[in-house]
C-alpha cells in the first residue's frame, strides 16, 4: 500500500513548506516560532520518530521525562506541551486526529534490534541511523540523542507494568499539528522498523507541511 491521499494542513495558514518524507527516510527542518508543522500519516500507522531542539542552542532539547511528568500523563495529544529538560516549552500539540502518541518507546536502533528480535536484524535500517546521519548535518551527534516522540505509535502500559508496541490507532490521512513556541529544529526518522506493528509491518511515506498564520510576519 503506497497510495497517497490529498491532504491539507490541519491548522489554517500560508503554506511555506510542503515535503514528503519517503518511507524509511530521515528529514529535518527549522520551524520558526509561531509557525505550525502538520504531520500527515499518509497511509496509516506510520511511526514518525521525532526529536526537537532549540534552533539556536541544541543543548536545549526535547525531554520525554520532563514532558510527561509536567503533564502527569504518559501519552501525548492535543494540549501536550513538548518541553526541554529544563521544562521550557519547545512546541505545543495544537491539534490531533489520532488522540494518543507515544514518547516512552524511544527509537529503534541496530543494537536494540539485536536484543528485541535477534542478531539477524543488525543490518536492517533503524531510526538511530537516520537520526545520526541527518543530525550530523546540524552538528547533532550521539550525545544529543535522547528519548524521542513516536507520533502515530501506540504503546499501552498494562496494570502490571507490561508495555509494548501494539497495533496503531491511526489511519490513512490522519494528521497532527505542532505549533513552535520558539525557533526549533525538528529532526525526524520516518521509522523503517519491520519487526513490530509500529509501521503496520510496511513503512510508508509521511507528509510535512509548515504553515504560517495568515498575516504573520516572516
Amino acid at each position, binding site marked *: 500500500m503506497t497510495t497517497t491521499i490529498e491532504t491539507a494542513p490541519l491548522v489554517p495558514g500560508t503554506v511555506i513548506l510542503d515535503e514528503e518524507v519517503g518511507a524509511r527516510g530521515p528529514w529535518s527542518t527549522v520551524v520558526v516560532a509561531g509557525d505550525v508543522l502538520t504531520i500527515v500519516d499518509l497511509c496509516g500507522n506510520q511511526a514518525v520518530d521525532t526529536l526537537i531542539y532549540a534552533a539556536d542552542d541544541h543543548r536545549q532539547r526535547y525531554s520525554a521525562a520532563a514532558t510527561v511528568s509536567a503533564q502527569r*500523563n504518559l501519552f501525548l495529544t492535543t494540549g501536550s506541551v513538548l518541553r526541554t529538560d529544563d521544562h521550557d516549552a519547545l512546541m505545543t500539540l495544537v491539534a490531533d486526529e489520532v488522540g494518543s502518541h507515544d514518547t516512552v518507546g524511544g527509537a529503534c*536502533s541496530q543494537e536494540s534490534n539485536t536484543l528485541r528480535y535477534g542478531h539477524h536484524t543488525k543490518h536492517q535500517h533503524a531510526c538511530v541511523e537516520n537520526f545520526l546521519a541527518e543530525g550530523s548535518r546540524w552538528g547533532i551527534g550521539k550525545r544529543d540523542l535522547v528519548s524521542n516522540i513516536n507520533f502515530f505509535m501506540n504503546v499501552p502500559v498494562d496494570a502490571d507494568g507490561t508495555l509494548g508496541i501494539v497495533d496503531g490507532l491511526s489511519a490513512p490521512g490522519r494528521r497532527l499539528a505542532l505549533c513552535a513556541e520558539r525557533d526549533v529544529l525538528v529532526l525526524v526518522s520516518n521509522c523503517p522498523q519491520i519487526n513490530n506493528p509500529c509501521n503496520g509491518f510496511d513503512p510508508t511515506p509521511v507528509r510535512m507541511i509548515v504553515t504560517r498564520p495568515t498575516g504573520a510576519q516572516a
Partner: protein
Amino acid sequence: MTSVDTSTTSAAKEHARAQSGVVTDSMPVVPASSWPTPPSDIDPALLTWAETVPGGRYTTKVLGRGTRLRLRDLDGRACAHLLLYRADAPWERLNVADTVKVPWQAYLGVGHPLLSDQGRVLATLVSDGSGRHDALCGTTSLASNTARYGDGSLHSASPAGRELFTVAAAKHGLERRDLPPSLSFFHGVRVGEDGSLSSIGSAGADTAIDLVIHLPVIVLIANTAHPLDPSPTYDTTALEVLAWTGADVAEPVDADPEYRRAFLNTEDVWAAAQRQGREQA
C-alpha cells in the same frame, strides 16, 4: 568569634589538621573497608564505596565490572536518581527507553537490565526491598523545583536533580548535553489506563536495592525529591551507598531472551577488549 589562632602558616596548618577525624552521618568513609556497619555476609576488605549522601546532595564514582552496588533509603524519604555511562566510552550510556521497551516492562524489579544505547547491559537489578521505582518521569529541573519549593539551585535547600547531575557529570568531563533521562529508586510511579501518572511514594525506611555492574561504569547519583513527590515541602532524607567487588557477572541473571542477548552483547564487547589488551601486553 572563635579563639583559634590562624595568624601564621604554622598555626593555620595546625588548625586545619586538628579538624580531621570528625565523623558525621553524611560523609564517605575512606577506605571503604573502615565502614562501621558492613553487610554481615561481606568481607569488609571487599568494600570499594561506603558513603551516606544527605538529601539534596549527589555523589559519583567509577565502578569496575563485577561490583555489587547497594543503595539504601535509610529513613524512608530518599530518592536516588541514577545515571550510568561506560567508563571507557562515556558516549555509551543508560538508555531509559530501551531499558523499559526491550524487557517489555515499565516497572523496575529484580532481573531488570539497565541497558545502554548500544544494546548492552550496564547493570542488573538483582535485589529489591522496595518495589517503588521509576523509569518514566526523569528528574527535577531548576524551573520545576523553583515553582514547587521556591528554589532549585545547586546549593539551595531544595536542589533539582538536573542541577546536581550537571555538577556530578562535570567531574567526569561530561556536560549538560550528556545528561539523558535518568532512573530513580525509592519513589514509585504507576501508569493509569488513560496514561495518567501517579505517585505511590516510598516503601518506607530501611529499604535497599542491589545492582550488579557488568562493564566499568561512571555512576552518577542525585538524592533529591521525585518530580511527582506529593509532599508540599522538600524533605528528602539520607541515602546510604555501599559497593563491593566479587559479584558474579559471568552468567546471565535473568532468563528472558532479550536479557540473554543483552548479556551476550556485553560479554562480547568485554571479551574483545580484554583479548586486544593481552595481545598488546
